[in-house]
């Protein structure tokens, strides 16, 4: 393990304050080294939480069963950690060797004692003057590899931070924030490659996924999520076979006149990719085309927007893609991260599969070897008037533009073979208003409006991946955003905008426990174990997009 102490810090301590080396005690007191082996086996290890989604498979399944359906009613806070930043929190903390790393809006990182909440260090990245982001100054977390943490920033940089000292080791500029590029996702690291996508689908960017050298920050490869030929096959229907009401003739004419729109076609990647370590494949979902609601400026299927994409970990070259919703004009994109599981194919044979919860309200099951669609689930939320085109006056269609399912990661329990998703029901009208590319400013090509008097709500939904049937569905008073954790204790954890963090019975959907955190719980929960005690941690910072009450805390729960 590399063990670096910044000579500069040491010198400045000695010179400026006349202190001895014990000034370095603001460090994490244990050695931190997340080896490739540990990262590969993260799903098996119940002590640590090493990936944003728990493992490279992204199942968000904790094998611990200490907290279970029988005793969860006794769950109580072990500690609450408060940050200095009162703004939405979407962080999934990383936990290793009893140390927790969490992030906040505006790119702060904290290292704390995961047992007591005592702070070790606080790193505050200073964003440049220009930042353009979609849905609040969010950050979803760090990735860990060996002795370093990696974070994407609002001004579209990638920084490496020493996990022990909290000092920045390198910084790589990813793209120009003035053109609408920004970072909110937690990166992922494999074989020394830090893998990160980009946000900016609301600003007319050209999306990508990239690999950077974990040691140096040097760019290793780039995959454009928008190919130079983005036209595709002029698909008339979506993955479920419903008509998209495209005017293909008019689109072809527009293509002739305007050319391929790939340079400003969007295709951001919202969430952390999954990695199939057996085949060295990076699998991720690509978001909406730009401008969101105006298809007239972007003829064609708009590849690879609203798609599931698999690329080679070593080269960044395309392996396959599957487009769920060609030529989207509703922002019903693919945001929630893909999850790698085993599932039955159409013939009942168990195959390597990948599932994704769409904003459309379906869970899609695809073959991981080819990308081919195996099945899609029943709709988890009401669908009405699908896919009616946006108009100048506004068209009512369900689901609303937040979905379905937003960026919220699902959790998959291999014991129940159910996948758990959180839903939104928000009736909206879709309005189109065509304007040319505004040079980096917000570019939606219209607006979404909620409909007064129409009730909004949420669900926690369990879907059988082998049949696509909904096993259970439990309603919540507000639309849901944040993400899910499933555990071997037969539990499903997820939070709500009203401050409630709840535990559900994985088999029935019954609420077995709840606790009010005083601010919106709109972040993915995690599980870890220290000295034989299982802890569940979740951030309560509210949400910008749905305007849920802001907070600044991470709550950590355990049995008494």
């Amino acid at each position, binding site marked *: 393990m590399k063990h670096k102490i910044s000579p500069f*810090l040491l010198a*400045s*301590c000695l010179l*400026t*304050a006349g*202190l001895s080396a*014990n*000034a*370095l*005690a*603001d460090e994490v007191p244990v050695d931190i080294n997340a080896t490739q082996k540990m990262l590969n086996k993260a799903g098996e290890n119940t002590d640590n939480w090493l990936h944003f989604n728990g493992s490279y498979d992204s199942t968000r399944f904790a094998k611990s069963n200490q907290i279970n359906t029988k005793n969860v009613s006794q769950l109580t806070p072990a500690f609450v950690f408060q940050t200095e930043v009162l703004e939405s929190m979407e962080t999934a903390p990383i936990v290793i060797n009893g140390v927790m790393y969490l992030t906040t809006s505006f790119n702060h990182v904290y290292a704390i004692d995961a047992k007591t909440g005592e702070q070790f260090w606080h790193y505050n990245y200073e964003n440049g*003057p*220009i*930042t*353009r*982001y979609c*849905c*609040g*100054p969010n950050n979803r977390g760090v990735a860990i590899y060996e002795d370093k943490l990696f974070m994407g920033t*609002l001004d579209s940089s990638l920084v490496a931070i020493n996990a022990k000292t909290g000092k920045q080791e390198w910084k790589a500029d990813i793209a120009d924030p003035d053109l609408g590029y920004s970072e909110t996702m937690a990166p992922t690291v494999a074989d020394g490659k830090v893998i990160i996508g980009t946000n900016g689908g609301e600003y007319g960017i050209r999306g990508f996924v990239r690999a950077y050298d974990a040691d140096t920050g040097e760019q290793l490869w780039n995959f454009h999520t928008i190919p130079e030929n983005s036209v595709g096959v002029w698909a008339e229907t979506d993955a479920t076979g419903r008509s998209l009401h495209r005017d293909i003739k008019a689109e072809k004419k527009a293509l002739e006149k305007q050319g391929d729109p790939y340079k400003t076609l969007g295709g951001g990647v919202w969430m952390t990719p999954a990695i199939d370590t057996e085949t060295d494949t990076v699998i991720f979902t690509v978001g909406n085309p730009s*401008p969101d609601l*105006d298809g007239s400026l972007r003829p064609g299927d708009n590849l690879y927007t609203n798609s599931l994409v698999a690329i080679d970990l070593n080269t960044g070259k395309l392996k396959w893609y599957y487009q769920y919703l060609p030529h989207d004009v509703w922002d019903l994109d693919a945001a929630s991260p893909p999850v790698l599981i085993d599932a039955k194919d159409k013939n009942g044979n168990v195959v390597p599969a990948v599932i994704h919860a769409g904003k459309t309200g379906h869970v899609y099951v695809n073959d991981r070897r080819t990308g081919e669609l195996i099945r899609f689930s029943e709709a988890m939320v009401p669908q009405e008037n699908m896919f009616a085109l946006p108009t100048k006056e*506004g068209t009512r269609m369900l689901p609303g533009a937040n979905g379905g399912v937003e960026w919220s990661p699902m959790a998959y329990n291999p014991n129940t073979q159910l996948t758990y998703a959180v839903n939104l029901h928000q009736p909206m009208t879709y*309005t*189109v*208003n*065509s*304007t040319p590319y*505004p*040079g*980096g*400013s*917000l*570019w*939606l*090509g*219209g*607006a*979404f*409006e*909620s*409909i*007064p008097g129409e009730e909004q709500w949420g669900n926690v939904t369990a879907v059988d991946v082998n049949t696509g049937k909904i096993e259970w569905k439990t309603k919540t008073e507000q639309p849901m955003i944040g993400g899910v954790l499933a555990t071997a204790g037969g539990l499903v954890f997820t939070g709500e905008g009203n401050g409630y963090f709840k535990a559900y019975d994985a088999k029935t959907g019954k609420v077995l426990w709840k606790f009010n955190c005083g601010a919106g719980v709109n972040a993915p929960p995690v599980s870890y174990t220290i000295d034989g005690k299982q802890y569940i941690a979740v951030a309560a910072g*509210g949400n*910008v*997009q*749905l*305007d849920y009450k*802001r907070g600044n805390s991470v709550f950590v729960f355990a049995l008494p």
Partner: protein
Amino acid sequence: MKTGTRTVCFTFGLLLSAAGLAQDGNGFSTEIKQKAQQCMTCHGENGHSKNGQYPSLAGQKTTYLYTQLQNFMQGRRKDPVMTPQAQTIKDKEQAIKLAEYFSHFEPFDYSVKEDGGFQLDPDKVEKGRKIAKKNQCASCHGSGLTGSGSMPRISGQQPAYLEEELKAFRDGTRHASVMNSVIGDMTNKEIEALVHYITSL
């Protein structure tokens, strides 16, 4: 033990702020401060406007201010008074610096009490609140409509200016596809209600 590095940071902080004081409170160049004086003749001392014709700039989000300056400089946003002003800005770098400068002041906060001209009407406030909810203003303009990144702070802005801009979005004389759609074909009454609501925050 822990105080060690904190002392370092604290000492560092003192050094920095001492250096800053020598430069009149902050790290901006004399050139930018002089240039900003020109702006303050309309936009008010430190960007706190006292006149409904002119928007306040103080504490407004840097990215938003910079974007608007670029819009004026490149003709995407037009105004007979402001356009010639923007044309005196040298380049992109100066625009960013001016934006940072006005952004660093305490945010503007229009006070109904100080300005006898504007009277809040509770019915209009309520009506405006409903419209704001329907149109999800806070999902972009942030909690309390205080802005974030490229989304402007609008709470505490001059009410007359707000009304003029909302109408300009409606009438298509100010282009921003999102706001043009959001405001759509709202009536003058609805826009007035929104202004009352925003001013009540």
